[in-house]
């Protein structure tokens, strides 16, 4: 095991050295399948609900019964319009559904209803922001609509290998997918990763898809090729399928770059083929060669008329689009959040929505951001809960922050009541009142307490006066302890200094 990994490391070093030397340029293109959020399926009125009993959300249409016919779901088209708008794509005013034929048990009709020659929209782009602060525009070749397949459930083993039989669940069959195809314009793993993050966020913001890769709502095929540095001609690509995490995608690309570099370096040729990614070994292997590639025999589906998307329809959908991530980030920067904080919030739409509402309630933006991204995020992580799952509301958080802003409570006190607010939705004002935890802001109240602490610790007073200034903190701590943290820090400092001389 150790031997293998050390050899692997050696190989990596050599490969990395080649890339460092810029012998080859990396070219990456992505095909992203996004599961679209709709109440019903693309061509029938079956409910789109997951986690139901197998084969319950089905009808003659989505199970491919003889004689059943597809009827387009307008809600799916509306979602496709949104996807086109957020990616600046050109919508074909008339686009055509095509049958894509292949045999597989989870494909009830023996063909998928997809789009081929006239896809829903074309020539879009997504701008991505890289770590070094630069931005890059990634072109989208096309986005098309298609219906999803069902699921094969293998019996007797985890996967198909070793299983004794397979069952088919068609609950997912017929749900709406958008296939988003990029130009081969990404040149590093980072770019591919940032593109996917950016696209995912866009889809989530526009509510087109929940885009959760772990739930299979985002499925990505990667095309990787290498070409001599600076060459205008693309090299032969390998298509990699079957990654189910962002990490898997990165590993697959990395493996492909290494594999293809080795082949080219040895004077060989990369085969055009479809490869399968294995999560356990983090490697890819041949699935189908070019010769074995499916001939899908696309032709226009005679059961469906060309889909007409009017300017009016597009304009109507446009009015429903929310603020998009890039605009929101810009707004946060204007609100004096740091780029880091702004991005952090934007990346988490529910939290950013919560933040906006909290600030609208009167809270200071920076404070709201800090509370949300550190303390609250920390508690939620520990409780394995999302914001929406707790009774905490923006109004409550806003109130708490304003209590701090007004000096009614200290940050420290706020922290002690936060947990209660998250757990029970307690009103911070009432929590403070109940526990008597309002800050002590009057000298008359605080001075006697300080005096008693000084009287009780003559030795420390002596040492402090002898020059051990560090002991100042000791007195602060003792006073805070005595006041259960309610002493206003500024006042405490001021009085202590005056008393100790």
């Amino acid at each position, binding site marked *: 095991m150790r031997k293998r990994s050390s050899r692997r490391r050696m190989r990596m070093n050599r490969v990395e050295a080649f890339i460092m030397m810029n012998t080859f340029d990396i070219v990456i293109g992505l095909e992203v399948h996004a599961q679209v959020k709709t109440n019903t399926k693309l061509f029938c009125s079956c409910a789109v609900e997951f986690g139901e009993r197998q084969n319950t959300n089905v009808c*003659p249409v989505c199970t491919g019964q*003889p004689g059943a016919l597809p009827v387009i779901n307008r809600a799916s088209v509306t979602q496709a319009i949104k996807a086109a708008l957020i990616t600046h794509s050109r919508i074909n005013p008339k686009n055509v559904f095509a049958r894509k034929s292949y045999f597989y048990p989870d494909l009830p*009709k*023996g063909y998928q209803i997809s789009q081929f020659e006239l896809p829903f929209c074309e020539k879009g782009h997504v701008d991505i922001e890289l770590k070094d602060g630069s931005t890059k525009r990634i072109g989208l070749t096309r986005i098309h609509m298609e219906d999803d397949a069902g699921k094969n459930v293998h019996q007797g083993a985890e996967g198909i290998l070793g299983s004794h039989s397979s069952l088919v669940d068609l609950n997912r069959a017929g749900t709406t997918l958008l296939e988003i195809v990029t130009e081969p314009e990404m040149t590093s793993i980072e770019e591919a990763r940032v593109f996917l993050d950016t696209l995912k966020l866009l889809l989530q913001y526009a509510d087109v898809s929940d885009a959760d890769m772990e739930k299979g709502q985002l499925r990505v095929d990667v095309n990787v090729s290498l070409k001599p540095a600076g060459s205008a001609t693309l090299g032969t690509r390998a298509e990699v399928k079957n990654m189910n995490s962002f990490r898997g995608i990165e590993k697959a690309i990395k493996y492909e770059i290494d594999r293809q570099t080795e082949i080219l370096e040895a004077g060989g040729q990369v085969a055009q083929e479809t490869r399968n990614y294995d999560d356990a070994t983090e490697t890819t292997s041949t699935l189908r060669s070019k010769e074995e590639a499916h001939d899908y025999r696309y*032709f226009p589906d*005679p059961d469906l008329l060309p889909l007409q998307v009017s300017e009016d329809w597009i304009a109507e959908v446009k009015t429903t689009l929310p603020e998009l991530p890039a605009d929101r980030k810009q707004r946060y920067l204007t609100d004096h959040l740091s780029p880091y904080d702004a991005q952090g919030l934007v990346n988490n739409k529910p939290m950013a929505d919560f933040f906006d509402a909290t600030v609208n309630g009167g809270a200071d933006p920076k404070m709201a951001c800090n509370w949300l991204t550190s303390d609250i995020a920390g508690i939620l992580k520990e409780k394995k809960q999302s914001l929406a799952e707790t009774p905490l509301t923006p109004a409550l958080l806003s109130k708490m922050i304003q209590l701090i802003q007004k000096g009614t409570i200290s940050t420290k006190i706020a922290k002690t009541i936060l947990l209660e607010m998250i757990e029970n939705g307690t009103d911070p004002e009432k929590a403070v009142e109940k526990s008597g935890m309002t800050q002590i802001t009057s000298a008359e109240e605080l001075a006697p307490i300080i005096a008693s602490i000084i009287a009780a610790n003559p030795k420390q007073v002596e040492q402090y006066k002898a020059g051990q200034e560090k002991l100042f903190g000791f007195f602060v701590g003792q006073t805070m302890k005595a006041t259960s943290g309610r002493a206003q820090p500024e006042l405490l400092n001021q009085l202590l200094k005056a008393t100790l001389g």
Partner: protein
Amino acid sequence: MALSSKSAHELSALLSSGTITSVELVREVLSAITAQEPSIQAFLETYAESALADAAQVDLDRESGKLLSPLAGIPIAIKDNLCCAGRKTTCASNILQNYVAPYDATVIERLKQAGMILIGRTNMDEFAMGSSTENSAIQITKNPCDPTRVPGGSSGGSAAAVAANETILALGSDTGGSIRQPAAFCGVVGMKPTYGRVSRYGLVAFASSLDQIGPLTRDVRDTALLLNTICGKDEKDSTSVDVPVPDFTSALGKPVNGLKIGVPDELMGAGISEGVKSNILKALAKLESLGAHVETVSLPSLEHAIAAYYIIAPAEASANLARYDGVKYGFRSTAASDLREMYFQTRSEGFGMEVKRRILIGTYVLSAGYYDAYYLKAQKVRTLILRDFQNAFTKYDVLISPTTPTTAFKIGEKANDPLQMYLSDIATIPVNLAGLPAISIPCGTSDGLPVGLQMIGKPFDEETLLTAAYAYEQG
């Protein structure tokens, strides 16, 4: 005259006047079936029990004064490619031998709403692929006019059942002539409505851009009545068209004085038998005598219709029949040990020769590298054919041709010569490619066998066809 040999509109009058009951009528039809079936074999299954129960219900409804449709209580036979909930729907194929439809086709729903009595499902060429019903995996239906001859196809069972008085009405489907050609061979009326006029929802697809459901009846009035029941936009079929559905019976009895009739040269020339031709010419003379103007017209693209059809129809069929894979329903071969073999064996054993031939042709013409040369080119021919018809219809109200080049041929005569079989659809295929309505009506006999006359109309102008057909029939 036995009730079972009467037309639906005659029986409708007898039923509504209380002269007969639906139960009596159904009993007579069932006994006609019992008498005729051994020699005709039009039905794959009859629904004696439910038909009598349904008839009793209609009789009750009538007694209680319920408002009933004109066709309430009238028996109708259904081609076995129309889904009927809880019933077998097999398309006369082994691959669907045990398939029970879980839903009603839209036309079946409409028949049921009209109180019509489903009397049974009829034989057909497997998946509607054929012109003789010899491609049925189940049985060979005989032509009631001459049992040594085919009834035509693919709706041969429905046409034979009407002709043999085994039903009053029947539904068929027409992809390249599958209603009109058997109607012509059996001497009954058959109509293919405009593409989009009748919902295809629940019609087991052969070639989706060509398939259309239509009536097979004893006379033109019955066709009008049945059209009234089955036509109309259906939300479940995206290709059904939202145009007003008239009362088609109001087109009957209108004069044909001044009607402009075109006769395409291409459908009256080589290959048309003399016996057929002379009957058509006599019919044209009769229409002229009724005041119609008759002229010949040329539609040069029709020459390529069969070639285009035998690319487009199999291409669509190859995808439409992909769902019969042994996974979800229907036949699954037991002679398989893995998935690939299951597909291979199931489809090898489940489909008949003609179906396999068309799946192979369709798969081939859609394959990478051949698509442009075949499928795309065929679509262009289709456009040319449509244009020829459009041009002709700027001058004429109706086009007339023989429905078929010959009368019914012998069983087995063309079974091993698919090309000859395909050519027999020369006059009907172009109509499907153009999506037009057309009716075949009996037009005399040649050597004792029925000749069919085809009238082709403008899109959604079934009324003019009915006017002309009725005038000829009554004249």
